[in-house]
């Protein structure tokens, strides 16, 4: 049941990206182009998503466990703001602005067959692995 739920969630997420236009990098970049051809749509996408997610996370916080898994895997509410967080977000944002793609839309676009998308996702995977490696090394050093 857990696997089917995740498959369906992925499907709904992807359709949400399509319906909202977020699968189109131009729509994302036009939102970010505050000095130019500004398209505010992205703000409405976030509003819609947050409107549904807020009550869901609230309900989750009052539950002992999720329906089809032994425990919730939510980040700690008291985790601090770190240099890593800000630095990582800054780097992520730069890439996102440059391509108009972030992980969700890029992966949802793979089936559309554009070479750029394939390249982006491959590079993104490399970046993910590099960061994971970097973080593992740092925590290993810290543990010494």
């Amino acid at each position: 049941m857990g696997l089917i739920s995740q498959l369906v969630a992925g499907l709904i997420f992807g359709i949400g990206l399509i319906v909202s236009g977020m699968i189109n990098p131009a729509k994302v970049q036009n939102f970010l182009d505050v000095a130019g051809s500004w398209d505010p749509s992205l703000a409405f996408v976030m509003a819609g998503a947050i409107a549904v997610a807020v009550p869901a996370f609230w309900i989750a916080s009052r539950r002992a466990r999720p329906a089809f898994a032994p425990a919730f895997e939510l980040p700690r509410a008291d985790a601090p703001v770190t240099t890593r967080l800000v630095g990582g977000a800054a780097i992520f944002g730069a890439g996102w602005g440059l391509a108009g793609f972030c992980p969700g839309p890029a992966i949802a676009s793979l089936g559309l067959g554009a070479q750029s998308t394939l390249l982006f996702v491959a590079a993104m995977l490399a970046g993910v692995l590099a960061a994971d490696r970097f973080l593992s090394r740092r925590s290993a050093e810290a543990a010494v």
Partner: protein
Amino acid sequence: METHFTPLPAFLGGSLIGLAAAMLVLLTGRVAGVSGIVRSLAVPPSVRAFLGSTAFLAGLVAAPFAWSALGGSLIEQAVPASTSLSTIAGLLVGFGAILGGGCTSGHGVCGLSQLSVRSLVATATFMSTAALAVYILRHVTGGWPWG
């Protein structure tokens, strides 16, 4: 590519994304942060996580096909114009998301929905650098300078 302000489809599509996040957290306890899901596919912490991530990402990849089958309109896209742009942007997105602990869905949707200060800071940060990148690309360099 020019795009138009489409508040209703934007809000509706957004609420579908929210619905997906709701399903994921209430049914499986996971955050719908795509970068984190990709990470748990690439560097699986457990078999359960790997299988779950595969299922979610499979659904994501299948979405345009489901859309088409449901009679949805042709999907318009302006993908990155150059090889080096796609590669560099992809590297930055992948590396930055993992380092920063999330992306637009992880921090921007799920984090903000949990009133996370970390996610607020992360979202404000990546929105700023993304806007800066677009500004430079469109109004300073006049496009990506390398082929």
